[in-house]
């Protein structure tokens, strides 16, 4: 009885609170990707992180309550080149022995001058936390939705391949990140 009362209270509170909260979405991992593009020896390549989790609260009409919280399993890196992956996970780059995960959490959303939604946040990668802005594209599709986010990072900002690997003609500094999330209610 007490239990039932507790659940009911939570449900009622949740129902009361929900108008003020942005809609929470479930991410469909089978149809979602977290990819990036960089250059290696002057040739562009795309890599992806096969395992990540994302908690998405988003309503385009209520940006004040929107929130993205993404945890990335760096060891799930796949650039379709096992030698490159091996190098990238090593101490000179992602150093997954020490930093197996990366984390991104938003701090604020706003509409940019061009009308696009920008999510300001902090990315923690290889022990370095830096502000990162995502450009957000949200497309409702019936009760579901598709969320695409892009960001431009610099690998050297996060200490990926410093020292002998800092030569950006071999490995480009710029990294274009593209997240494609299939959202279900």
């Amino acid at each position, binding site marked *: 009885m007490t239990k039932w009362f507790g659940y009911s209270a939570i449900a009622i509170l949740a129902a009361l609170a929900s108008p003020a909260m942005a809609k929470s979405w479930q991410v469909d991992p089978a149809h979602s990707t977290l990819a990036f593009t960089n250059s*290696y*020896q*002057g*040739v562009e390549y795309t890599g992806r992180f096969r395992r990540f989790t994302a908690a998405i609260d988003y309503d385009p009409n209520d940006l004040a309550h929107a929130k993205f919280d993404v945890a990335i399993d760096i060891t799930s890196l796949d650039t*379709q*080149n096992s030698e490159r992956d091996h190098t990238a996970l090593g101490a000179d780059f992602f150093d997954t022995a020490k930093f197996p995960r990366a984390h991104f959490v938003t701090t604020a959303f706003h509409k940019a001058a061009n009308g696009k939604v920008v999510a300001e946040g902090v990315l923690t990668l290889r022990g370095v936390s830096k502000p990162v802005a995502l450009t957000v594209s949200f497309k409702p599709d019936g009760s579901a939705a598709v969320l695409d986010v892009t960001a431009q990072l610099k690998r050297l900002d996060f200490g990926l391949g410093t020292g*002998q690997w800092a*030569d950006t003609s*071999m490995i480009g500094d710029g990294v274009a990140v593209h997240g494609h999330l299939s959202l279900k209610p």
Partner: protein
Amino acid sequence: MPLRSTETGWGALVRAFHWLIAVLIIAQGVIGLAMVQMGLTPAKVRVFALHKSIGITILALVLLRIAWRLTERRPADPVGMPRWQRHAAHGLHLALYVLILAIPLSGWWFNSAANAPLVWFGWLKLPSLTGGLDPVWKPRALLLHQALFWLLVALLVLHVGAALWHHFRQRDDVLRRMAFGSRKYSGDAR
């Protein structure tokens, strides 16, 4: 020094192809054997890129060389050379041509299957032969590349040995005409 080959000697272009490709193959073999021993540093990446660039250069030179060879005659074999030796020599030469085409191609194939970049001397981007990663053929292409290389080493031992045998034992002009072109008229009847 004629550009084209004659009845008695190799032309300047064939000799240029022969020695340039010879030097590149030796350099390529040394680089190839050394680079796989290197630790994982940017230098290793650069040496691999150099190996790929030299390999593509050899492939292009061999194709040009074959195209040129098809347009001209080859000098006659030494007089009195037994039939089996002629067949052995021509067969060996054919095998060498096949190998110096197949080795760079197998390297290109391996590189493609490994989804590694291929930019000739950092300047000309070359396409993948597999359209991206091919985990099934990657180890096979590497094995083929290595096996063909060692076969080439074995055949080059025969090739160089035969050239020296002709020069020092047979005292004919087989080595001389590849080194210097047409032999000077020395009075002996051919």
